[in-house]
């Protein structure tokens, strides 16, 4: 029926690929607790850098929930030259378990801590 070793390899790889994909999705579907999106933002202060327009603060968003967040709006607040400043970023999609890299921008290097708050998001 199978004419040569290559056909056996194709069949083996195919069975493994399908079993892997379907198996993963079934297990994920059955164990999915349906937890709502839980965005977690990590500021990468060490990687911050200056540009002529101000200060760029890289950050990473992850989602520790089970559902994706859509149009996730984030706001960072910091003090620059004694004045409180806000920076807003919207992330189109934040799927569960996926890291999204983005950056906040300020007019200059912030003094003290930068605080991040979640403005809101849509459920898909």
């Amino acid at each position, binding site marked *: 029926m199978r004419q040569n070793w290559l*056909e056996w390899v194709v069949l083996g790889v195919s069975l493994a690929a399908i079993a892997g994909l379907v198996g993963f999705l079934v297990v*994920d579907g059955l164990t999915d607790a349906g937890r709502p999106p839980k965005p977690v933002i990590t500021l990468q202060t060490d990687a911050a850098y200056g540009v002529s327009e101000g200060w760029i603060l890289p950050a990473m968003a992850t989602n520790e929930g089970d559902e*994706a967040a859509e149009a996730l709006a984030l706001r960072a607040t910091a003090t620059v030259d004694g004045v409180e400043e806000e920076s807003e970023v919207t992330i189109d999609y934040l799927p569960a378990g*996926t890291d999204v890299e983005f950056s906040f921008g300020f007019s200059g290097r912030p003094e003290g801590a930068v605080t991040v708050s979640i403005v809101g998001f849509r459920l898909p």
Partner: protein
Amino acid sequence: MVSEAAESRSESVATTVRDLVRATGGGLLVGLPLLFTLEMWAHSFLLPSLKIVVLIGVAFVVVVGYTAVSGFRRERSWIELLIDSVETMGIAAVVATVALLLLGRVGLETGLRDAVGKIALEMIPVAFGVSLAGTQLASPEDDPEDAADQGSTVADGNGAGTFARLFIAAGAALLFALNIAPTEEPMLLGVEAAWWLLLLVIPATLAVTFAVVFYADFRGGRSLESGDGPLDRPLTETLAAYAVSLLVSLLLLWSFGRTDGASWSAIVGQTIMLAVVASFGAAVGRLLIGGGGQQQEAS
């Protein structure tokens, strides 16, 4: 003797390699548009896992159907048909994975569930392409006997039988409308259309598909003569193919979550608009297969 056996074995490996290349080509031909579609990437994590499993199951049934008609290999027994279909899905999974990696849609930063969802969704159109690679891309010269056999399961005598034709119509409608279904456009068109516009779209769709199959004199087109069965008349066949296209459209809209929480009028509007695309696919599918008898006479 030994060297002869080794020679024929390496020849058969070469044949397998060629089959695989052909399968990959067919898969990419159908799959590439959707590999480049943003909504397909997003649906990988917007759709629940178990729904993706259901979609793969439906796709497998469709692949068995396509493979029965063509297939990238030409064996016909039931067990071979199933094995070929499994391999079709497997090849599609590998092709989709490599393509998503090269396109940068799946990478180290991608969550496992997200990556698996993307591969599982994108492998569906690729699998349709792989399973159709046999008839549409096979070169007739390299295996004249097989070439004559191709499509013979449905194209004996005067083209395909009524139900085989409707099955082909459904398959072609699915293949063509699948490119449009995940995008937002059918939803916008359906939701924004006034009721009278939808009432105009239905006869326009019917007129176009009727004309393409029975009047335009494309290769594979048919005369206006009626057959014996109630669905063997041009008008009834056009209506039946339209009904099939509406069903396919509704299935696709459900697949991509367009029916979730939508009002009845929104669902009806979207279905009618997507069915414009689906029924055109159904018409072209009937052209390609329905005239199998005539095509073979001509060659």
